[in-house]
């Protein structure tokens, strides 16, 4: 009984997802349409591509996004790496002490 109920729930969720995506979302294949203004030329990606070299002074647009537009995010990335290193060193030091 519970298995049938779970299966029915999964099918219901799948039907809801598929109908929502296919009816109200964008048609498949029109990917860069997430625009702020009315036209694709006003989309946020296009604006960053045009303005980034003048705003940040870096010729590499990826760099100007990574450190110029969202520096907090990249600081978080560096913190993730620090946490990973601390975790690995901690685990292996504990292993060594136990032997």
């Amino acid at each position, binding site marked *: 009984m519970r298995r049938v109920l779970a299966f029915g729930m999964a099918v219901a969720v799948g039907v809801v997802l598929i109908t929502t995506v296919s009816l109200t979302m964008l048609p498949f294949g029109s990917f860069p349409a997430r625009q702020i203004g009315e036209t694709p030329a006003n989309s946020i990606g296009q604006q960053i591509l045009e303005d980034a070299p003048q705003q*940040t002074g870096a010729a590499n647009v990826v*760099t*100007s996004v990574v450190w110029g537009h969202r520096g907090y995010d990249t600081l978080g990335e560096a913190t993730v790496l620090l946490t990973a290193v601390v975790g690995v060193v901690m685990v*292996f*030091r504990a292993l*060594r002490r136990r032997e």
Partner: protein
Amino acid sequence: MAGMTVIVRTIARLLFPFTFLFGAYIILHGHLTPGGGFPGGVIIAASVVMLVLAYGIERAQTKVGFLHAEVLESIGGLVIAILGLFGILLGVAFLENVFPLGELGQLFSGGALPLLYLGVGIKVAAGIILIFYAMLLAFRGEKK
């Protein structure tokens, strides 16, 4: 962990400066060409790992020790944080670019971006070396 044969040692010794230089180039030109602090740091770490594999952990530790890597990683994080605090000291947001931008496409351009990438490069290189050392040193006692 002992070293390898003399062929591997010679090749590793000859390749090390070029690999290191390539990593430094990737880091320093991060604001001009594809690349940056993360891949450049990994390349520098790979050059040191190559030396460790060829010469053995004991001889490599006399050049780049465990403590060196720990201190260098902290210095890299500190560089990023201090460069971010410059923005607050001058009255704008944290990590905002307050240095002169310079001419587009030159090596000395982009304000704080090359310095930030330098900090990230040092941090990533030291971090990967540290992970490698920790894994090697944990199992050193068993092999002997």
